[in-house]
């Protein structure tokens, strides 16, 4: 501590140690907050169409467009340490070649930010202003965790590696989430209960069948 530089170095060194300990405490405090997510999801209208992956591809594949309805309550996931919650809905069906494997593809996803991370959202200035206003003054906004979608158009049209999708049986929609904290571990939809963190209640739809590709009616001869 004999010179200015040494004092500066020592204070900064201890400051980084304090930072690390406080961050560890903040991450640990997450386990004290209970998590009780619940969701219901159901497929509305399903159609299977023929299409190409991109303009110049030679192979035509079958794509499923699954419109769905979803009601979810993720408000308990939002604590002071939550930066954003990533919610995604996937369609999965059993693999014809194996008992254990399933085919799974994501049809829709969204990012829900906590007000403390609003400035990081990838949206234009008008939408950004609206978002910042919606959480005025509040540091966390659990209300954003409530999702209510009716006949939602999917973000992604899904296909399978074989290229054939029509008449597949046993397709199930599942809701998943991923909590991204400011400090701490990433956590996904839990497979086991951990203390006060409960498993996602519901979140799986009834099994349905993908229809066949609609055959075009022959043009009526006048």
């Amino acid at each position, binding site marked *: 501590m004999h010179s200015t530089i040494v004092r500066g170095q020592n204070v900064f060194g201890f400051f980084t140690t304090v930072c690390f300990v406080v961050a560890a405490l*903040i991450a640990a405090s997450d386990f004290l907050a209970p998590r009780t997510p619940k969701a219901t999801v159901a497929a509305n209208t399903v159609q299977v169409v023929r299409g190409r992956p991109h303009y110049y591809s030679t192979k035509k594949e079958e794509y499923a467009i699954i419109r769905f309805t979803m009601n979810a309550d993720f408000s308990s996931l939002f604590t002071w340490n939550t930066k954003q919650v990533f919610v995604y809905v996937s369609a999965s069906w059993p693999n014809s070649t194996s008992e254990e494997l399933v085919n799974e593809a994501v049809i829709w996803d969204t990012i829900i930010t906590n007000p403390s991370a609003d400035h990081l959202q990838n949206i234009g200035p008008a939408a950004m202003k609206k978002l910042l206003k919606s959480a005025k003054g509040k540091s*966390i906004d659990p209300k954003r965790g409530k999702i209510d979608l009716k006949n939602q158009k999917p973000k992604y049209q899904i296909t399978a590696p074989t290229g054939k999708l029509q008449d597949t049986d046993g397709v199930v929609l599942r809701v998943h989430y991923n909590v991204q904290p400011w400090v701490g571990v990433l956590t996904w939809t839990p497979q086991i209960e951990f203390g006060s963190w409960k498993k996602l209640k519901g979140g799986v739809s009834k099994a349905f069948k993908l229809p066949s590709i609609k055959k075009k009616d022959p043009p009526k001869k006048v």
Partner: protein
Amino acid sequence: MADQLLEQVRDIAEGQIDFEGQRLAELLATVLLVAVGAVSFVVGYVKQDIKLALYIGLGGTALTMGLIVPPWPFFKRHSVKWLPVGGMEKSSQGIIVDGKVIG
């Protein structure tokens, strides 16, 4: 003249403080930083606001730096008393070598 000015600048840049001051600086650094960390966590947890916790932490650390790093006068209150240069002990210390008193 410039030499003397440079000497003054060097002294200020070095920022030397006495030993009691160094002990005080070390104690203050530890206590203040731990307090800043504790306060920032507790306030953030109670208000559930992580941005606030971050600002308190950074602000408190900046204050601590401002208090400890510059060589303030209260760090120099117990200056070391150096012995006079070239002085010799007047009284005998009773050192005898080869039968002769030499010191």
